[in-house]
């Protein structure tokens, strides 16, 4: 039996993945089914990343393959039923910090796994997080930061969420190169994640648990 689509993508065989997509589209296969298979492929990538077999470049490359598959499928998706999203997550890099690689990886992974992501971008003031939590009702907030100056911005963001009376309505996770459990405590967040795959596990755990 030939290898299935998800494991071909999981093996990062870009050419083959795109050829199968092309063939399937030509034969009239349901575009949503193709995307679901592709997502299973990314799931394999995520598992291999967690087990230490894959690394950041592999994750980025899988994102590139998925992007190309999605671009090929997109014209066929018009009018297709909207996918039901699993839950809402507000993301952003905290005030004064403009780093976005980790932020965008988390956005990509959460989106791929079916969550509705509100990515506020970089250098996001605390009030903007508060406002977005209010308007979306998102139960999860992800704070990203790379520089040591983000330690205080994270703490200030959590404090602002507290001051707005929203602290018990949201779970807050932090991530970024220097983050660890001590900074999580310092900032007053609920969890820290080492990478984008860890962020997905946290979100799944929280959304599933409520």
């Amino acid at each position, binding site marked *: 039996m030939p290898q299935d689509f998800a494991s071909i993508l999981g093996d990062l065989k*870009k050419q083959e993945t795109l050829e199968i997509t092309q063939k399937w589209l030509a034969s009239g296969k349901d575009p949503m089914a193709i995307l679901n298979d592709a997502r299973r492929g990314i799931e394999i990538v995520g598992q291999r990343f967690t087990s230490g077999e894959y690394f950041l470049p592999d994750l980025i490359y899988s994102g590139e393959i998925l992007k190309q598959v999605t671009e090929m499928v997109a014209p066929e998706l018009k009018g297709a039923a909207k996918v039901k999203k699993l839950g809402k997550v507000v993301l952003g890099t905290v005030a004064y910090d403009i780093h976005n690689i980790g932020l965008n990886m988390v956005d990509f992974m959460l989106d791929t796994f079916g969550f509705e992501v509100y990515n506020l971008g970089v250098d996001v003031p605390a009030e903007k997080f508060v406002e977005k939590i209010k308007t979306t009702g998102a139960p999860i907030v992800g704070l990203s930061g790379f520089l*040591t100056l983000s330690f205080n911005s994270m703490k200030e963001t959590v404090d602002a969420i507290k001051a707005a009376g929203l602290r018990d309505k949201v779970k807050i996770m932090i991530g970024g190169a*220097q983050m660890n459990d001590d900074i999580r405590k310092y900032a007053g967040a609920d969890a820290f994640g080492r990478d984008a795959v860890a962020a997905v596990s946290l979100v799944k755990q929280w959304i599933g648990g409520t």
Partner: protein
Amino acid sequence: MGKTPEELYQEREKRFNDAIQLKVPDRVPIAPHFIFFGAKYGGLNCQEAMYDYDRLAETTRKTVVDFDLDVYMNPSYLVSLGPMMEILGERQFKWPGHGVSVDSTYQYVEKEYMTADEYDAFLNDPTDYILRTYIPRVLGALEPLKMLPNIPGASYFVGLLILLPMAFAMEPVAQALEALARAGQESLKMLSRLEAFDKEMAALGFPSMLGSYGWAPFDCIGDHFRGTTGIMLDMYERPDKLLAAMDKLTPAIIGTAVGLVQQSGIPRCFIPLHKGLDGFMSPQQFDTFYWPTLKKVILALIDQNIVPIVLWEGDCTSRLETIVDIPKGKAIYFFESTDMHRAKEVLGGQVCIMGLMPSWLLCTGSPQDVRDYCKRLIDVVGKGGGYILNGGVGIPDEAKPENVKAMVDFTKEYGVYK
């Protein structure tokens, strides 16, 4: 009877060099490297620090003297950049007053500054590509340089006598050259202040840690040309071109680093690394893409009697067995969060280790937390020499001064070799 500054200078320089050469010094040297910490400690914001050479020098001196460091790092190379950035219309950074707050460090804008389809142009003639495509793209004031003629084409009379001089008669090119000259004046002013500062500090008895900068060729392409995402995709989609581009840059990186040593007279070169850490690539990718050209840079500097001070950012524990393969006692490996036990086990007796004091502890911990951690570092990594105490990536801009003081004082007291 106190020691003279000259005696103190010799003593500190010897302590630092003994650690590098893996001899047992009188005590663990304490050499905290800092960028904006000194300026902030002296009451400047980041914007003032980046523009005012004299006040940066004053606050640096105050920091080195108040904390009584063994060896200091002159922060000017990494801080006194404001006037040049402004005159040249720098687009790769946001800096205080230009996209980030006056209290924030300058930050790099992650982007593809060279597109994937430009590798061929780069490989064919890097000088022409950098002069007429890259520089006009990243420095706004020099954008008109894209109007220059193809440089190798100016090697015979139509090019040499007509096209080349004509380009310089164009108003935008003339303005670009004027901006370049003004930036050059600032750069000269900054460098002469920097050199004078190092002399003043030497007269007070404090040696300077380094006088030169180098890069891993992979980081150079990744940070400045292709961007993080771009270079990671290149490892899959165009590995041969990426390897060729790194080969092209390697001699240029070595040449610049050696040139800076000749200019500064300080035979130590700082090589901060960004993209080779654990997780950022597999061991196999590290062996293929990252280490070979970096090793060339390190060996070339050692060959010229220059001590490479290689900052391995993040956790590089899985790289230790590979990177130990350099000449004994000739370099410093500066670690952020690599496992201290494994580092000592693998590198001890081969390469001097520096750093490892966590940034977050210096920013958010208490002096007692810092002393406790210092004790562990001195016990484990300092055992038998070959260790220099420093923050994981130096002293963070936001470190609490009382924590830095605790780190320095404790090391002087506890770090004595008996």
